[in-house]
C-alpha cells in the first residue's frame, strides 16, 4: 500500500463539500436540519396558507378582549330589543347588521361574532394546554420506556394499554360531573377555570398514549446507534443520553404529533361541550354553540353556519399544517 500518492487527496478531501462553486459565497454557513426544514416549509404553499390562517385565528383568540372593545359588544351583552316575538333575531340571515356582523343568537340575543371570538379563545387554550401536557407526558414516558426497556418498558406498556382500552367518552361522561360534584355542591356555580382544568385533565389522562408509543418506537430505533454508544463510552449519564443525544433526533415526529393533536382536542372539546359535560354557560364555547344551534337549523341556519364553518377551518388548517410540517421535517417520507 503506497502512501505518498494519497497526500494530495487528503487536501482535496478536507475542502468543504457543497460549497458554492462560484466562490462568491465565502462565508459558507452550515445549515442545521432545522433550518433546512424551515426552508422547505417556506416553499410549501399549503403550509404557508394554513399557517397564515392559524396565526390569524390565534391572534384573534389572544386579542379577544381588545376585539370586544373595538367592536363595542361584550360576549354576554344581550340585545333583546333586536329579537321578534318568537325570540328570533330581526332582519335577514340571523340578524346580520353593521353592529352584529354574524347576527344574534335566538332567545338570548347575544352577538354571535364576539361569542365566537371568545369561544375560539376557550377552544384553543384547552387544545394547546392539553396537547402540551400530553406531549410532555408522552415524551418522558416514551423515551424512558424505549431507552431503558425491560421492566420499565413493560410497566409503561401495560399502563398505555389500559389507558387505550378505557372508552374515552364514557369515562369522560362519568368523571367530569363527578369531579365537579366532589368540589362543588349540586347547586353551586362551577367556575369556568375549574371546568377548563377538568377538561384538560381528562384529555391529559388519555391523550399521552399515542405520543408515548411514537416516541418509544423512535427511541428504540435510535438507542443502538453508535452516537449513543459514543456518549456512553465517554462517560455520559442517563440524562445526557436521553435529552442531549436522543431527544434532538425525535423532535420532528413529536412536533408533528403535537400539531395533529391540537385539532383533535379542538373537536374533542367541542364534542364534550356538545354532550353537555364541557364548558357551561355563560362561558363562550364552540361545541356548545353548535349544540344550542341545532334546534334552529331550519329557522335560523346562520346560527349553525358561522361557528360550524369556523371550527371546520380551524381544524382543517391545523391538519394541513401538520401534514406539511411532517413533509418538511422528513423529506424522505412518501406522501
Amino acid at each position, binding site marked *: *500500500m503506497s*502512501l505518498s500518492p*494519497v497526500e494530495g*487527496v*487528503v487536501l482535496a*478531501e*478536507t*475542502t*468543504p*463539500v*457543497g460549497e458554492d462553486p462560484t466562490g462568491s459565497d465565502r462565508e459558507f*454557513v*452550515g*445549515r*442545521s*436540519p432545522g433550518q433546512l426544514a424551515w426552508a422547505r416549509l417556506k416553499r410549501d404553499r399549503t403550509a404557508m396558507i394554513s399557517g397564515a390562517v392559524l396565526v390569524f385565528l390565534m391572534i384573534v383568540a389572544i386579542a379577544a378582549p381588545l376585539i370586544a372593545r373595538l367592536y363595542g359588544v361584550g360576549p354576554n351583552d344581550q340585545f333583546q330589543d333586536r329579537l321578534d316575538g318568537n325570540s328570533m333575531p330581526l332582519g335577514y340571515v340571523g340578524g346580520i347588521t353593521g353592529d352584529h356582523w354574524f347576527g344574534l343568537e335566538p332567545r338570548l340575543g347575544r352577538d354571535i361574532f364576539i361569542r365566537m371570538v371568545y369561544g375560539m379563545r376557550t377552544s384553543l387554550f384547552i387544545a394547546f394546554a392539553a396537547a402540551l401536557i400530553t406531549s410532555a407526558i408522552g415524551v418522558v414516558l416514551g423515551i424512558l420506556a424505549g431507552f431503558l426497556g425491560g421492566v420499565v418498558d413493560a410497566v409503561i406498556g401495560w399502563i398505555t394499554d389500559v389507558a387505550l382500552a378505557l372508552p374515552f367518552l364514557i369515562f369522560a361522561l362519568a368523571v367530569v360531573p363527578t369531579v365537579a360534584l366532589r368540589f362543588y355542591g349540586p347547586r353551586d356555580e362551577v367556575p369556568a377555570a375549574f371546568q377548563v382544568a377538568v377538561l384538560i385533565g381528562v384529555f391529559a389522562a388519555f391523550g399521552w398514549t399515542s405520543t408515548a408509543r411514537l416516541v418509544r418506537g423512535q427511541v428504540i430505533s435510535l438507542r443502538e*446507534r*453508535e*452516537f449513543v*454508544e*459514543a*456518549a*456512553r*463510552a*465517554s*462517560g*455520559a*449519564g442517563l440524562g*445526557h443520553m436521553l435529552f442531549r*443525544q436522543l431527544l*434532538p*433526533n425525535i*423532535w420532528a415526529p413529536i412536533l408533528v404529533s403535537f400539531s395533529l393533536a391540537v385539532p383533535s382536542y379542538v373537536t374533542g372539546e367541542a364534542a364534550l361541550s356538545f354532550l353537555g359535560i364541557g364548558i357551561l354557560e355563560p362561558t363562550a364555547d364552540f361545541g356548545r354553540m353548535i349544540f344550542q344551534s341545532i334546534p334552529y337549523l331550519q329557522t335560523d341556519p346562520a346560527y349553525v353556519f358561522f361557528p360550524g364553518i369556523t371550527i371546520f377551518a380551524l381544524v382543517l388548517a391545523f391538519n394541513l399544517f401538520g401534514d406539511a410540517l411532517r413533509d418538511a421535517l422528513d423529506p424522505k417520507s412518501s406522501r
Partner: protein
Amino acid sequence: MSENVSTATATAPAAGGTGAAGATLLRVEGLTKHFPVRGGLKPGGGGAVRAVDGLDFEVRAGETLGLVGESGCGKTTTGRMLVRLLEPTGGKIVFEDRDITHAGRRELRPLRQDLQIIFQDPYASLNPRHTVGRIVSMPLEVNGIKPPGGVKRRVQELLELVGLNPEHYNRYPHEFSGGQRQRIGIARALALRPKLIVADEPVSALDVSIQAQVINLLRDLQRELGLAFVFIAHDLAVVRHFCQRVAVMYLGKIVEIGDRTEIYERPRHPYTRALLSAIPDVTQLGPAGRIRLTGDVPTPLNPPTGCRFRTRCWKAQDRCATEEPALVARDGGAPVACHFPESGELR
C-alpha cells in the same frame, strides 16, 4: 495460560519500534462474554451464545494490537467490553494496574479519559442533530472538563489535528463525506487525550483510497501522541500495514498471537494459514496456494469440544476433539493454540 502469553510477548520485541519499551497498559485475562438466549421454560433455559470465551492478551503503551478474524468471531464484542460498553461475563480487564472489569460509572470516570473508542460506521456514530463542535466537545462536556483557552479552541485544535478545517466547527455531519466523518469520530475520541483507543473496524465502511488516508492519520497520531491501539479489523492487509502485533480470533478464542512478521510470514495455526491464503493476490492468478476451508463456522451456541477449529481443520485428529489446545509458545515461535502447529514460511 496468561503467564505463558505474557512471557512469550515479553520475549518477542515489538516490531516497528514505536513506543518500544512501553509498560503494559492493558491486560486482559480470561475475558468472557456469554449472551443468554431466550427460550426454554426457565430464564436462561435457552443456553447462551459464547461470543467471547476466555481471551488473554495485553497491550503495551504506544503499541498497536490487531484483532482479526472472520465475522461473528467476537472481535467487536471484545472491543466493546474493553471500553465497558458491554459487561463481561467473566475474566478480568486490568488497565494500568487497576481492575476495571466491573467498575461503576463513577469509578470509570477518570478512566474514560484514557480509554476511548472509534466506531465502524461513520454514518451512525455522529449525532445528525449536533454540530461538529458539539460532537467533538461532547466528551469534554460530559466529563466537566474546561480546557485552557476554551472548549471551542480545543475543538478546533482537534479538528486541525485530524486534518479537517477548523472552520467546520458549526457544520452538521450530513455535510461531510464518509472519510471526513470518520475524522470527526477520531477527533471526538482524541478529545480526552486517551492512552488507548479501541478502533472497531474504523475503515471498513470507507472507500479504499479513503481507508489509506484514515489509516495514515491514525498512524501519525500514534507517533505524535504515543497512543496505543486495539485495532479490530477483518482486512488483513490493513492490519499488516498498521499493527505491530496481531491476534487471530476464531469462534470467541484467540488461536494465535504474535508479531506481525511472525503471523504474516510464519503462521503456525492452520486457521491463520487459511485466513492468510484467502488474501487476494493480483500477482498470482488462479487458486494456487489457496487453502479452501469447507463447511461453516460452528454455532457459538454450542461450540465443538476440544479445539474449536477441528471441524474445519485438515489436520484434525482424535486428540483435537478431546483436549483443548492451550495458547502457548511452541518451539520458540509465537503462542499458538494448536496441537499440531504448522512450521515454515508461508508459500
